[in-house]
């Protein structure tokens, strides 16, 4: 049986451009007869967040740290679950309402590992990866505040199973 290495089976991308869910699904499943489950999550820019009348977002990041942080999160997921491939994409720069912002896809033999690992990666991405959102509204701009709810979601994973 083929043994996957971490390098070839984890794809991390920080990009201004949009992404294709179909292409990521292909990356997760091509030539993978041992894959029985694929879970994907896509985050989008919502119309209502902290304030009404949002027209878009600006995403800033810490270039030298971002990929390192995402790599570490995916490695932690690989240690915790028996998963096969991972794709993480995060967009930066200017985004409009209804644009896609983030993608996490995980493949595994059985659904449980893929479901859990995808959620774990998103929960850690939201609380550790160095991205910051600024909301652009018709009346001005403001930096989005971090939410307690996201910290709680991550804390859930540090409890013993």
């Amino acid at each position, binding site marked *: 049986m083929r043994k996957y290495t971490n390098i070839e089976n984890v794809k991390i991308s920080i990009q201004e451009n949009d992404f294709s869910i179909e292409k990521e699904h292909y990356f997760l499943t091509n030539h993978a007869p041992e894959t029985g489950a694929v879970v994907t999550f896509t985050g989008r820019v919502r119309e209502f967040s902290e304030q009404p009348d949002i027209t878009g977002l600006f995403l800033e990041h810490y270039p030298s*740290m971002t990929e*390192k942080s995402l790599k570490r999160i995916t490695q932690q997921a690989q240690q915790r679950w028996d998963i096969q491939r991972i794709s993480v994409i*995060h967009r930066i720069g200017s985004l409009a309402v209804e644009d896609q912002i983030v993608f996490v896809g995980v493949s595994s033999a059985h659904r449980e590992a893929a479901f859990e690992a995808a959620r774990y990666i998103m929960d850690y*991405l*939201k609380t550790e990866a*160095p991205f*910051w959102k600024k909301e652009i509204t018709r009346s001005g701009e403001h930096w989005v505040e*971090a939410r307690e709810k996201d910290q709680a979601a991550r804390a859930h994973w540090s409890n013993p199973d």
Partner: protein
Amino acid sequence: MIRIYFFAKIKEELSLDYFDLDIKTPCTVFEIRKSLISEFNTHKKLFSIDYARCAVNQELTDENKSIDLNDEVAFFPPVTGG
């Protein structure tokens, strides 16, 4: 002297991408935080322990972490990606 990088709201409110802090090394993250608070006294809330996170060599770290001359140090708001 250590160069401290800033991001997002901290960068914007100080209008600085980085600041060269005059501090003896090695020192701790906590000592750097205290120096930043006195240096930017009118913006001290930006560096409060409840707000600003610190990364050393691109990894989130705690207040006791020891910092030396060649380390890359950054202070930034709680992250809000995803």
